[in-house]
């Protein structure tokens, strides 16, 4: 409803909203880049090219590259099962998927420590086989899988429920194989929501801090992801270095917002 914007009350509300957004959203974003470039472009590049920071970038990208496709497959399978069939426990399943979303990241890290840690449920057995999960890259990947597990599914479920299965039924009755139906009918129907879910998964996987800091061991140049590296630099009183590292993640955040904007337009 493009209502009257001329009333005094309306103008006051708009002004208040814009002012609050300026203080709580725009200024913080501006500060990140202003601080990262506080000592000039050369210092910025030097900060990013620090070996430890570069390794953190590598580890962060590696985590996202594994986590995003795996959770896309999980998200599609879950949404397909929940939106296309009726079975006992279906509603329960929809709520249970949300668990990782509602759990504190520290608790997420802790439950993994109690599974794969030295005193954990599986840790000692795995260790006797020579498999070390905790305080290494696999642990970082596992907790990242946990915290981002719901993102794709929660984008797809409402969409696939709303779309119904008429398109797929038509394709099947015309003789398409199940795989053809999925690739040529389902996938095109859900692609924007799927992409959006993947974008959200990526942002969270790259930015996860609490859960990763419990299980990674934060070994400099080995198991430090970018968010952990930011904390390390900050604790070393290297604020410009911390902001340089933070600016890369902030850029990804801005890209996420732009992609979301574009994907929503496409979806309409």
């Amino acid at each position, binding site marked *: 409803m493009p209502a009257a914007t001329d009333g005094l009350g309306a103008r006051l509300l708009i002004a208040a909203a814009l002012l609050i957004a300026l203080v709580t959203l725009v200024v913080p974003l501006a*500060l990140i880049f202003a601080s990262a470039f506080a000592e000039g472009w050369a210092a910025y590049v030097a900060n990013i090219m620090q070996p430890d920071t570069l390794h953190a970038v590598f580890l962060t990208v590696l985590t996202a590259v594994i986590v995003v496709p795996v959770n896309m497959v999980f998200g599609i399978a879950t949404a397909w099962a929940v939106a296309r069939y009726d079975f006992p426990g279906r509603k329960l399943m929809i709520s249970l998927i949300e668990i990782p979303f509602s759990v504190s990241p520290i608790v997420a890290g802790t439950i993994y420590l109690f599974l794969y840690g030295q005193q954990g449920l599986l840790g000692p057995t795995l260790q006797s086989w020579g498999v070390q999960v905790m305080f290494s890259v696999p642990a970082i990947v596992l907790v990242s899988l946990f915290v981002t597990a719901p993102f794709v599914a929660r984008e797809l479920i409402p969409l696939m429920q709303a779309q119904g299965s008429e398109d797929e039924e038509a394709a099947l009755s015309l003789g398409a194989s199940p795989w053809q139906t999925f690739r040529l009918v389902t996938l095109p129907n859900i692609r924007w929501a799927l992409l959006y879910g993947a974008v959200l998964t990526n942002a969270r996987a790259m930015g996860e801090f609490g859960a990763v800091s419990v299980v990674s061991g934060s070994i400099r140049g080995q198991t430090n992801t970018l968010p952990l590296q930011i904390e390390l630099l900050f604790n070393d009183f290297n604020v410009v270095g911390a902001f340089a590292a933070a600016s890369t*993640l902030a850029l990804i955040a801005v890209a996420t917002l732009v992609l979301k904007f574009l994907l929503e337009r496409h979806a309409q």
Partner: protein
Amino acid sequence: MPMTSLQRRRRVMPGFGLSMGIALTYFALIVLLPLVAMAIKTASLGWEDYWKIVTAPRSLASFRITLTAALAATVVNAVVGLLFAWVLTRYRFPGRRLLDALVDLPFALPTAVAGLTLVTLFAPNGWFGRYLEPLGIKVAYAPLGIMAAMFFTSIPFVVRTVQPVLEDLSADVEEAARSLGARPWQVFALVIWPVILPAFLAGTTMAFARSIGEFGAVVFIAGNLPMVTEITSLLIFIRLDEFNYPAAAALASVLLLVAFLLLFLTNSLQARVLRHARRD
């Protein structure tokens, strides 16, 4: 006997076994198994030890600090979120699309980056701190900082739950109320508010749950002083660092229970939002 559409669908649509198999196996391995490990660890404590850990002064202080800050942040978020949702759906003004996109920034921005940014803004020589500190308002390394971090990281929840409901609210109902002589505040209180209330409550519950669990943004700005600015998540982290696993398990189980409770509450509220939507 006529077949229901679901029965027919189940017979025609392929891939039930495959999709269910992938979903359940993955869910069991990634989500359930660690939760079971945690439950076993906590159960091995015994009730007496458990109670002793959970009611220790430092634990109780952390609960109090976390809850107060989360409540305060949620109240502010409820007001700001409602304002954003209202302005975004009801008015056309320059910068509306930009505001709509920016609302999601706290979700897209990693919490460590948010924490680093907030502590720099509110430091005594920071962009905000230099004006607030002379007034005697201390945010960085103070309880107010915890609230600020929790507020920032959960800004989108109320906006994004209320916004679609406000958009769907048909204009003719308001029009009718107005033409029958209702004043603007009466239209809001009697027509709009009852419709958006379930969504509003679901959004505030989610914001509250997120605030209670928030770690990254808070640890940068809180100062992390035991009994004063130490949140429960941080106390768990410290106990793990000291290899005091029983204490970490007990405290984590408290946060986990609260999270389950709030998840249940959110789900029931959202079921209500859906029922409302179907009635139209």
